[in-house]
């Protein structure tokens, strides 16, 4: 970086920071609104990711502004953790769907305290999730040696 270009660079850098922060804040706010208003589990999950990425953008912006790699390193970590978290969260979502046949978060409001009344905004048609058969993943790899009394698959995960 040349010394002459320093003031210009500083001005551009500030503008760049502001822009990036605004983008990050918009992403975060969108995610927040999404997670508070949407009931679809996958959309809620996506909204959470959106909030995460909004933070990541601002981290990168600050990192660049200060000329410090720490923020960007943190973003790499966030991405890694988010990938893992996505795997785990999707399992939960899948399991929840397998149980209720819905992706609606409100389908789980039976977990409320017994004294509270159920909050209903719109009555949904009854689900036949228990009767429906959902596709299972096919086993991959070599079929293990099995005897008569070791089941191929576990009954419950």
């Amino acid at each position, binding site marked *: 970086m040349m010394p002459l270009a320093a003031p210009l660079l500083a001005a551009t850098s500030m503008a760049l920071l502001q822009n990036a922060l605004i983008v990050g804040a918009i992403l975060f706010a969108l995610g*927040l609104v999404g997670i*508070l208003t949407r009931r679809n589990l996958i959309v809620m999950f996506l909204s959470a990711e959106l909030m995460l990425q909004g933070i990541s953008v601002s981290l990168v912006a600050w990192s660049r502004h200060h000329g410090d790699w720490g923020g960007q390193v943190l973003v790499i970590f966030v991405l890694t953790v988010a990938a893992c978290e996505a795997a785990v969260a999707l399992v939960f979502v899948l399991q929840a769907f397998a149980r209720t046949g819905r992706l609606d*978060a409100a389908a789980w409001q039976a*977990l409320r*305290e017994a004294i509270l009344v159920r909050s209903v905004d719109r009555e949904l048609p009854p689900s036949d999730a228990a009767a429906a058969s959902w596709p299972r993943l096919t086993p991959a790899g070599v079929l293990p040696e099995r005897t008569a009394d070791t089941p191929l698959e576990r009954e419950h995960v």
Partner: protein
Amino acid sequence: MPPLSPATLLVLVPLLPLVGAILTILLGRVLGSRAHLPAIAGIAAAAGAAVMLLLATANQVGSPHGSHQEPIRPVEMISTLWQWATVDEAYTPAADSAAAIPGTAVSRQPSDARSFSIPVALRLDPLTATMLTIITCVGLLVAIYSVGYMHDDPGYPRFFALVSMFVFSMAMLVAASNFLIVYVFWEAVGACSYLLIGFWFRKPEAARAAKKAFLVNRVGDFGLAIATFLLWMTYGTLDFHDTLSPDGTILPGILGQTRLADAAGIVGGVVGTAICLLLLLAACGKSAQLPLHVWLPDAMEGPTPASALIHAATMVTAGIYLITRCAPLFVACPGALSAVSIVGGTTALVAALIATVQNDLKRVLAYSTISQLGYMFASLGTGTMLGFTAAIFHLVTHAFFKALLFMGAGSVMHAMGGVIDMRRFGGLRRVMPITAATFLIGSLALAGVAPFAGFFSKDEILATLHSRGWPDAHSEHHDAAASPAVAAAVRQASVPVLFAAHSQTASQPLSTLDTPATFRTLFWMALVTAGLTAFYTFRAVFMTFTGPTRVPEEAGHHAHESPPVMTLPLVILAVPSALAGWWLFSTNWLAHFLSATPSLTAPSVAKTAAPHVFHMDLAIQGSLAAAIGIVIAAIGHLGRRSDAPQMERFLGPLQTVFANKFYFDQLYSALVVRPLEALAMVAALIDRYVIDGLVNGVATIPVVLGGIVRRLQSGLVQRYALAGVMGVLMIVLALAWQLRG
């Protein structure tokens, strides 16, 4: 085997039954129906040791036919095993108390400071040797009898462990040489008694009777505890015996020879009387005297051998033993001594009256025991040498014939399948001849028919009461030891007394009781009691053994003579019941032997010794009373069906009073039991509503708080998220507020 020294034997007498008890407890399940072996072996060996001790002591005392002129030397041997508790400087007088205590001739000196120590010491003297022999010999016979009586009982090993434990405790009680050790074993025999009364604890009556016995005894035990405290405060020691301190001086014990040789050594006055009355209370509890007699009849719920051993022959005589042991203390307080006599005489009469209308054979014997113990108390209360020896004489003969009668009753009960109501059986002399014959011998002894044992001991008691009631008629028997010169001479010596009024200067409370008129009344009461005793004894004999043979259906195939293991002890006990009185009286052996007991060699007791004479006039009066009683019983019951209501017709309304035992139980129920139950109910209510309310109130706090907070758990994820966002917002706002300026 080398001959065992008396000290070793003295330790063995209590130790062997203890070992027997422990072995029975440990091996009871293994031994099963042979569980009696360790207990019987232990008690038998102890009985052997006790007899050897008795002979050794008798050898030291010497023959009664020696010279009557020289005074009898006290015979005592102390064997200190170990020091149980030692507290240095347990009593330190305040610095300003060196001056004389106002109104007394005693001052507290700084040198009076002393340590408290409890030596576990066993003593051997004629009184202890006599008691040990009775306890172990009767205990042995009862244990052998129990082999038959208790067979097939599920608690067989437990019974023998308890009997053995009782013999140990009782032996320690009479061999201990310290008031605190006496107290410990006083409680121990009470505990054994409780466990044996409640032996069949699944039976509600037995459990209730055990509780009653224990609680009533607590009243007496309380007296002994307070008496022990007072004795320590007064004498600065609890030992009976003198001890040699390391620096060579003699520390006089309460009943040691140093103190007894000194007329001023024993405290009279208010403190002395208080001690004696508290000891009397203790004796009343253990020996079932009025007003604490109510537990003994109920104690008959226990197994009959336990009744024979504990509630007839041995434990109930602990009170007699205690008062005899403390004879010098009582003699120094004539008022308390008279109280002993009055309690005893009244108890004898009241219990005999109750016994006349009882229909339960064991309860007749129980009231008879109370009555005979009353005789002994009346005799003790005369405070003369003859009074004390006569009481122990009666104790010895009574132990034999009352154990015999109880075991006879047990034999009847065994054969009748547990039925003990005399109205439901009769004519059993044909069914069980050995029991009938031995029971008759015991009854003759109890009724005081010459020449059976009770006649002589009862005659001595009547004689001692007579000598106090009509002192002039007996005055020629008194020797010169009571002359003022002798008394003044012994008064010179001084033995430390820490805290008390001087015995000669202080007033003697209750001394108005100590008049010939009191003893005259007691003599007539005793004579009437003698007649009543003969009546109720033979009423029981006639109802049980004469008339047409009747057997209750509960008896089943049991209605036959008891096995030899039960009849053998009866036959053995019948011999002393018939002969011991005559032998001991004619040779004067027991009285002479006992007079060498240190407590009875105190000048105040020894001076009352009278020559050994047979009072023909009293014997005739006593026999006449007994004969009248037997004749009335014969008129009422001989040859009749035992369920015929003779007594009801004869006594009329009095029968109701006697049958209700003079309403003692009702009185105590109203005065003690009901108020205490009411108090317990109040306490229960306080516990339920105040204490529990407090605890439950504390427990409702989290419930209430949780009730508020639980409304937040709606099950709607969005609300949780909103709450989180709100929280973050609040933190951000708070931070902004802080950073604002």
